[in-house]
């Protein structure tokens, strides 16, 4: 919508952010996101976010890793199946060590893939409607409104102690 305006309220206190987010829910404005310099559990609770699914990627990676590591060790052992001193060709304990290391390695790969896909990164689109102060000491609350509601939204943030930043309209959508 070309007439839509994006406005960010920049707070220095996370309690004010929480009250602004709560108030936005019952306002005519649409809440988009919060940008914070630290992971704030209070803000996440206020936003009522679902649990991340990254762990499933990690778990899948770990399972694949264990079987890959154990399987590699077992496969290579069976390529030269000459029994020496009665020792078994398939030696479980040493192969579990290889399996364990591969479990960790692949679980971490899964974790990284999970992070990148869930966070949708690398992506410069995140930098749209972003204020660099949000990586410093400010907590930015981004909301949208119709062009005629711009002053109302700005007042909404100012009343709650925020500095206000208005972004120019853009036809491109947010992430």
């Amino acid at each position, binding site marked *: 919508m070309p007439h839509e305006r994006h406005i960010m309220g920049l707070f220095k206190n996370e309690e004010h952010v929480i009250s602004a987010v709560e108030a936005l829910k019952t306002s005519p404005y649409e809440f988009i996101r919060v940008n914070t310099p630290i992971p704030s559990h209070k803000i996440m609770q206020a936003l009522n976010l679902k649990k991340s699914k990254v762990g499933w990627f990690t778990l899948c990676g770990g399972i694949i890793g264990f079987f890959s590591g154990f399987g590699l060790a077992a496969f290579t*052992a069976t390529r*030269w199946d000459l029994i020496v001193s009665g020792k078994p060709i398939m030696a479980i304990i040493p192969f579990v060590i290889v399996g364990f290391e591969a479990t960790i390695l692949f679980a971490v790969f899964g974790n990284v893939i999970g992070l990148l896909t869930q966070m949708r*990164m690398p992506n410069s689109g995140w930098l749209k409607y972003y204020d660099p102060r949000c990586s410093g000491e400010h907590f930015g609350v981004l909301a949208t409104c119709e062009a005629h509601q711009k002053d109302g939204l700005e007042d909404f943030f100012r009343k709650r102690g925020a500095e206000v930043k208005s972004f120019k309209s853009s036809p491109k959508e947010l992430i």
Partner: protein
Amino acid sequence: MTQLTYAKIDQTILDTLTPPKWTYWGILVLLFIGVLIGAACWTYQIFVGIGVGGQNNPVAWGTYLINFVFWVGIAHSGTLISAILHLFRAGWRNPIARAAETMTVFAVCVAGLFPFIHLGRVWQVYYMLPIPNQRLLWPNFLSPLMFDVIAISTYLTVSSLFWYTGMLPDLAAVRDRSTGTRHKIFTFLSFGWTGAHEQWRHFTRGYLFFAALATPLVISVHSVVSWDFALGIVPGWHTTIFAPYFVAGAIHSGLAMVLTLMIPLRKLFKYEDIITMEVLQNVAKTIVLTGLIVGLAYGTEYFLAWYSHNTVEMEQFRWRALGDYRWGFYFMVLCNTLAPLLFLFKKIRTTIISLFIISLIINFGMWWERFVIIVGGVAHGFAPHAWGLYRPTMIEFGIMFGTFCLFFFLFMLFAKHLPSVSMTEMKETLEGGHDHAA
């Protein structure tokens, strides 16, 4: 001391990234010359042969393997600080976690060079890769050396990814406060991080999993390194306590290296308000604990040799204390178990110079511990007619010098080009209150 705020944390840490003075470049050039000396010695060894080193029969494992174990050990405390203390919610680790993680990555890189150097014919390293050779033979995964290849490469990969992931918010902070080429570089490096709640939701979860995975990994890696020795039937090596003994020793030496690096960094970068004396004290207290564990391991080895009534084992440990390398043994006992006890005195652990000197003493002692274990075992084995001695050559010293220079060269490059303290974690510390921050 001034009260920390978000702005002051940013200012202090970003100030360290300003263009350095000529003294910085001067030190960097000197370290690079040291790296070249090491590279020249290694090149000479490759062309002339492994015989230019002091390794012989029976002492086939010399300084290359000693340095390998030493650097892997140094790497361990980085993960202890960044992962294990993160899981325990120890807020005092926040100011030193980044530098300790970086130390881990560079120490593993340096450690990883030594198996290549020790190979002699380095081009045959592919024998360790899981591919069949010309006669369709595969590597033997029953060998602890193959465990080690997997463990060290996993550790390097995991610690590098952990380090970079944790740094993303700080890379974005540098991006947001830079211009020109630096801005472009950090825009690329930060992957579009903005600290949006959706990013933090996944990031905090993923970081927790990283820590949870790195914790068993760090314990397994040095256990695997210890099995390089313990799975051989060499007197002095073939013992079940090696895994916990090596892990404790690794963390002990790594914590000492943390102090060795942090104290100059704190002074040069004016980090006194961030890396407080309380933080250094906590590292010192942990060193007392690890020193006691290491001391217990030294004592247990002697007890087991006596209690077993195994003649060869008893002779090995008699010779360790009274034989040709007795000085190494005295160094390791004095430096690793007795010197750290000085940290029990508050006056000593709250004085910068004594913290620094004792950290150097522990580093020295831990190097000698590896010398005593590795060389001592094979030098004085089962058969008296096969006993022998070992002395490193100038080529080995040159390579060792070069790798030490490489480690400090990489660390200096890091300290001036990337945030050496995590801004995000420091801000989290403030939110947790000063009691949590310690």
